[in-house]
């Protein structure tokens, strides 16, 4: 009698259809997600079309200094008589580019650290998580400011500075997920068949954490754009690039307030807020539907880091110690 050894069917195939189902359910449950997606699509479209839909050049004056909004200049004019509508469109390009690129950098770092930490455990986990804790605790924005100031103003530098300091939450979320994944049957099956760690990570772990990574990425974009706006506002971005942050900086530096020229800073600010709300709606809903246990973990992207620390404290203690402690005493 022969024994047929059968491996479990690769669960990633089912998983993806399961994810699709949960995403569909989420759309039904939360109509606000559609709004978020529409907003994101709109801004990405604007950024892509950029030069085609800018009504005026952003390099030359097209009207009076601080001219108010009119039919010819929908968003008014700035301190150089440059059309604000065109500048806001151009700002979308660089702000979204920097936000997206910085997020990719941080995703790469955070994903790698999270997977390595969760999969290998032991000393690697301890060391990587100590490093993560350190970056979680120090005020990243201040470190970004200092590094960007020392490195010199440029768009590439801003991307890397943000990306290199933004990965902590990604690492934590992914680590937790990978840790639970590696105890699942299909991973130990694969291992018993002699699959290398590399193969297990690439073929079995990665497909499972990918959706979570994507959800996390959308939330991170909001953070990256926030940080980018701040760095640009401090004059640490490229001096020549038009971004939403530099538009705010110019409004603050150059007498827009004493002119009462609210149109010099309202459009970029509203755009930033819309993009961040959109990322927040989509990212949070995605993550909730993919991983219900995380539901409480983040209420908002900015304060999420704080909640993460609180969670870290909680998880730092061995599970169940609180309950077994008193019992032991009674013995």
């Amino acid at each position, binding site marked *: 009698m022969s024994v047929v050894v059968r491996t479990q069917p690769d669960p990633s195939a089912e998983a993806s259809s399961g994810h699709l189902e949960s995403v569909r359910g989420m759309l039904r449950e939360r109509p606000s997600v559609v709004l978020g997606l529409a907003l994101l699509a709109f801004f990405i479209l604007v950024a892509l079309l950029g030069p085609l839909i800018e009504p005026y050049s952003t390099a030359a004056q097209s009207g009076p200094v601080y001219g108010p909004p009119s039919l010819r200049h929908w968003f008014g004019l700035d301190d150089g008589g440059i059309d604000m509508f065109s500048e806001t469109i151009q700002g979308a390009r660089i702000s979204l580019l920097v936000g997206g690129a910085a997020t990719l950098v941080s995703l790469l770092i955070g994903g790698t650290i999270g997977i390595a930490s969760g999969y290998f455990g032991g000393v690697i986990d301890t060391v990587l998580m100590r490093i993560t804790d*350190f970056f979680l605790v120090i*005020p990243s924005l201040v470190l970004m*400011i200092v590094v960007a100031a020392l490195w010199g103003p440029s768009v590439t530098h801003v991307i890397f500075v943000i990306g290199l300091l933004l990965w902590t939450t990604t690492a934590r979320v992914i680590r937790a997920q990978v840790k639970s994944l590696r105890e699942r049957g299909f991973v130990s099956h694969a291992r018993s068949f002699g699959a290398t760690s590399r193969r297990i990570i690439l073929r079995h772990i990665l497909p499972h954490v990918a959706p979570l990574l994507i959800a996390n990425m959308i939330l991170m974009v909001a953070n990256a754009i926030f940080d980018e706006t701040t760095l640009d506002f401090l004059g640490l971005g490229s001096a020549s690039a038009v971004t939403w942050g530099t538009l705010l900086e110019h409004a*603050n530096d150059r007498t827009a*307030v004493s002119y009462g020229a609210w149109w010099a800073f309202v459009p970029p600010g509203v755009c930033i*807020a819309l993009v961040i709300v959109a990322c927040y709606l989509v990212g949070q809903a995605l993550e909730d539907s993919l991983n219900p246990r995380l539901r409480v973990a983040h209420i908002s992207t900015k304060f999420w880091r704080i909640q993460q620390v609180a969670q870290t404290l909680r998880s730092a203690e061995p599970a169940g110690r609180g309950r077994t402690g008193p019992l032991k005493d009674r013995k």
Partner: protein
Amino acid sequence: MGVRGLLKRVAFAIATIFVAITINFFLFRVLPGSAITNWARVPNSTPQLQHLLKAQFGLDKPKIDQYFLYLNQLFHGNLGVSFANQQPVLGNLVAALRNTIPLVTIATIIASLLGLWTGVLSARRRGSLVDHASTSVAVVLYALPTQWIGLGFLVLLGRYLPSAGMSSVFTFTTPTPWQHFLDIAKHMILPCATLVLTIYGGNTLIIRSALLEIVGEDFILTARAKGLAPRTIMGSHALRNAVLPIVTLFALSFGYIVAGTILVEIVFTWPGIGSALYNAVVARDYPMMQGGFLVITVSVIFFNLVADILYSRLDPRIRE
């Protein structure tokens, strides 16, 4: 929490501060491209001062010796001399912190009370119009850039309230202490309001969801089944348990706010730690930049530690 747990947490905080100091040193003086190779080069200073700095920080010695000298000087409160005003960095930073602390403290208290109020309100009437309105406002406030809110206040109210600096210049009269206090308070209104709105959004959302998590627990159902008044359930059952994440949040956000104040201080030219850092960046005043980063980082780590300790004090499950 036992002494051991306390010691463990303090040790982690100290280790973190030490790493931050080390990064701070290497960032400014060792990494290629760090501009500050010679921070004795204080513009417009006397040769004696330059000589003294060179000796104190061993600027002609190898980097590793410089590192230990830096630690030694740091331990004695010597952070170098500001390029901008030729004063000791520490004195400048202490003066700046003294202006930041009242602003941040008042804003945090107001934002916390407001956040508690609306957070409880929307958790109690989950799904109601009040809940939706309060949550939407909170999300929008949270998403708006701080500097944008500040600029908005300036355009709307800049005519009626002082919009820059911390106090007026009294040219012809000497102000009484009371007048001086009132003057500063008036200057504080707009920056404080901006900071409140910035913090408030996140606070409300966190309190609401902390409460909602607890309202779903069985003991709340029991309390309701016992026929307790909703007020009692919310007050002594739900809120008491939700106090845990809330306290952590407030202590932690205090640390973050110190960093976040930078934007508010720049918009309103409030002479605090944020402005100090910004001016150092603009003027390439490296000793000030290094000192500012250190002070902000240490204060954030400190508040993290406080939150950590409070957290385990309040939650008996975590006590060791």
